[in-house]
């Protein structure tokens, strides 16, 4: 058990180091940081000073070490475009993205799981067939098109919901939240639906196929033979065994929702990390890009590790030989 956890941790650290190396190479060798930070007419002396200040005259290995230790403490350097510390930029933007992803994931679960269970239990019903077709189309429609359609219908034609920004936000410490104002909540609806919709179709299909699988297994047949009610069989036995793989997939999807938030935030001008990243890509603002890369990689590695450990904790079959990871 302990050996497994240690090995898993080591693996995660290696991945993070690899990502840090990519980020470092990006920062150091894509364009000249000194030229990007100083105005065109800066003197040679200024350039030399900045070079020393950034530590660019040290050996490359030393630079990498400084970069890694700095990053581990949350020091990401200074944005080329805004001339401000990247940490400040991220701290401003992070709450918006986290709230968006959280609400979208909640929406996906609340809608997707019941739909999946329903279409597994009534496999040949009209409603489940409609759901299947709709979800197939849903997977083929690019998310930004979904977003545009949502805006067109609910903001332009019906004029019910706002189509950009976060509405009024309240500051609690450094965190800004849109959860406690009406306009904040209203602004959350469309972006969260857009970000969650793709996951809804995914979760629905997953729950459906998992549940169909479980319903075919022997212990369900025996439960029926014992004379249990449909309700007890479906929800006490089948549903509980369906949830395990669903939780892992949803966990892994949480990471990719951060990435897809880039698109949502662009469509709705949502002031989160994704919008920051897109602006950085557009201006080749390398420090912001590498900071974003490291943060997202961290989220991914963390979620992956938690899911692996959860598997290990839940599935007793893995614990005998220590698994094959």
């Amino acid at each position, binding site marked *: 058990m302990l050996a497994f956890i240690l090995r898993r941790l080591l693996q995660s650290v290696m991945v993070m180091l690899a990502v840090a190396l990519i980020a470092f190479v990006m920062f150091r060798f894509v364009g000249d940081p000194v030229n990007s930070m100083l105005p065109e007419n800066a003197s040679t002396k200024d350039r030399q000073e900045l070079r020393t200040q950034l530590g660019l005259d040290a050996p490359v290995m030393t630079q990498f070490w400084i970069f890694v230790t700095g990053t581990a403490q949350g020091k990401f350097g200074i944005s080329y475009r805004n001339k401000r510390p990247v940490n400040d930029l991220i701290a401003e933007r992070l709450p918006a993205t986290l709230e968006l992803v959280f609400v979208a994931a909640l929406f996906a679960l609340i809608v997707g799981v019941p739909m999946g269970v329903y279409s597994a239990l009534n496999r040949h019903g009209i409603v489940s067939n409609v759901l299947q077709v709709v979800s197939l189309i849903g997977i083929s429609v690019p998310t930004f*098109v979904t977003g*545009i359609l949502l805006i067109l219908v609910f903001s332009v034609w019906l004029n019910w919901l706002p189509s950009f920004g976060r509405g009024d936000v309240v500051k609690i410490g450094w965190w800004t939240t849109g959860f406690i104002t009406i306009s904040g909540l209203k602004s959350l609806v469309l972006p969260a639906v857009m970000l969650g919709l793709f996951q809804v179709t995914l979760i629905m299909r997953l729950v459906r196929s998992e549940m169909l699988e479980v319903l075919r297994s022997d212990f369900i047949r025996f439960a029926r033979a014992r004379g249990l009610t449909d309700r007890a069989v479906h929800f006490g036995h089948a549903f509980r065994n369906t949830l395990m793989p669903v939780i892992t997939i949803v966990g892994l999807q949480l990471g990719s929702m951060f990435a897809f938030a880039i698109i949502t935030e662009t469509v709705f001008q949502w002031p989160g990390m994704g919008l920051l990243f897109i602006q950085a890509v557009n201006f080749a603002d390398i420090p912001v890009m590498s900071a974003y890369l490291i943060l997202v990689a961290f989220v991914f590695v963390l979620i992956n590790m938690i899911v692996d450990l959860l598997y290990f904790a839940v599935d007793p079959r893995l614990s005998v030989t220590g698994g094959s990871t």
Partner: protein
Amino acid sequence: MNISNLVSVKTVVHVLDSDLVYSFRKSRVTVIATIVTLGIILASILSPWIAPHDPFDVATLSLLDSELPPAWVEGGDARFLLGTDNQGRDVLSVILYGSRISLAVGFISVALAMTFGIFFGILSGYFGGVIDALFMRIADVMLSFPTILVALLVSGIVRGILPREMHENAALVVLIFAIAVTTWVQYARTVRGSTMVERGREYVMAARLVGRNPFAIIFRHILPNVLGPVLVIATINLAMAILIEATLSFLGVGMPSTNPSLGTLIRVGNEFLFSGVWWVVIFPSLTLVVLVLAVNLMGDWLRDALNPKLR
């Protein structure tokens, strides 16, 4: 002469008689999807000749024609079937030219990714060892991130390397490169897997005993046997490449508005949504969705048809 003719007729009959063609004709959805895809491809290739207007010829544009609704809506003009945008450009023509770019980026990036993927996959599957381990670790890391993120990152880095004034002209190349770099891993993975299986087969052993050199064995003997699954991935990836291109262009880091693809058109049209000018954004979106859906359906069918388990 006569004999070779006979052979080709025989081959054609043989092909038409195969399981694949039979299952294709049986699946009505696939037939429709193929017709739609071919139709869009044909229309986009022929766009300079069939487009009712030349949207890039400024002399023919008139601001008097700007923001006209589609022909069947009140106030529409029969000259502009799908309406016009804010500069008076015909939406239908712009879509035709736009899908040409989308398809070009799709096909070229798939071909590029396929070539690299097959090459590296087959080498690392045949030889194994350190190179194999290195490639597969890279593949692991790349596959664990969403493709759109990797594509964004690659295009960001390339933009950082290129001088700023080159961005617009190089956009097409940057896009193709970014998509190919993001997707080659999937081919490499698959090809590596099947190569490792083929490597142990008797015909490979025989070729080795005869003393053929390793590269001849790899490219003359093994390559034809590992191409099947690649075809499926390529079809599905064509839809994905088109989608990534559209997304990047929509996000503003793809094709510039002077040379728009479908994604660029959607981004530009999106800005006019609030003035009630819905047709400028809806029709390109619709084209994109139909195209991606059709290619996806073809890919799904091909995957099932080539899967021996489902026969």
